[in-house]
């Protein structure tokens, strides 16, 4: 179901490492934007989960980052860029259960090694690039059926 919109609807959020209080704001706003446009609930759910996990990754691991979303008539694209430590072994990081999160993050119930796999699972297209010492960029696309 393509949406009846001519222009791309965009949103942009600054994420600050360690700021757990704002976690979920970007995903919550994207969720409401999609709901207002009448997007299918299953699609909204996938976009919200993928976006929330992406927010958490920046907050847990990076110094700062940006999350931007672009809603067009046939899909939503979510792009996250961070100034973080970067990921040494992306293949390993994509494995369910693998995590480098410190203990205090795990005690909060994060850092179970499910974030990146959850993001990939909920996306139709998933791209990740990372340079150690520079940062990580993730781009996720969810198509509207």
């Amino acid at each position, binding site marked *: 179901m393509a949406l009846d919109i001519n222009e791309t609807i965009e949103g942009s959020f600054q994420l600050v490492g360690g700021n*757990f209080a704002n976690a*979920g704001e970007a*995903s*919550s706003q994207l969720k409401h934007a999609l709901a207002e446009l009448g997007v299918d609930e299953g699609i909204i759910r996938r976009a919200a989960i993928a976006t929330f996990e992406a927010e*958490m990754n920046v907050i847990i691991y990076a110094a700062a980052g940006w999350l931007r979303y672009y809603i067009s008539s046939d899909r939503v694209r979510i792009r996250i860029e961070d100034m973080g430590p970067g990921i040494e072994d992306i293949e390993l990081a994509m494995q369910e259960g693998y995590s480098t999160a410190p203990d205090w993050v795990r005690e*909060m*119930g*994060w850092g179970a090694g*499910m974030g990146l796999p959850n993001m990939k699972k909920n996306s139709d297209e998933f791209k990740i690039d990372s340079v150690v010492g520079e940062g990580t960029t993730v781009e996720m696309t969810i198509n509207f059926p």
Partner: protein
Amino acid sequence: MKLENIVDELSLDVKTCMEGLGNEVTGVYVSDLLSDVMANSKDGNIWITLQIHLNIVAVAGLKNLAGIIIVGSRQLQEETLKKAEAEKVTIMTTPLQAFEAAGRLYQLFK
């Protein structure tokens, strides 16, 4: 089943968002891993956890959960309570541990 029936049945202490007591409950999910709850809980579920920090509110909101039950009489952080009121997420507490709370709810839903 409505959330208020469950509150009565388990004598839960409602800490935030009384207006959520009319929510229809579709089932229960038990986990302390937030990514797991995001991945596997369903719309309208009650979530049983011992986590008390404010990210539980965002998870419950995003997943349209019917409410959160905090087990073991854990005291919620003030910022969690405030956020839950603002985001209209019903949080309840119980002295029961997760096993017993889940077991009682299982009896109600089976």
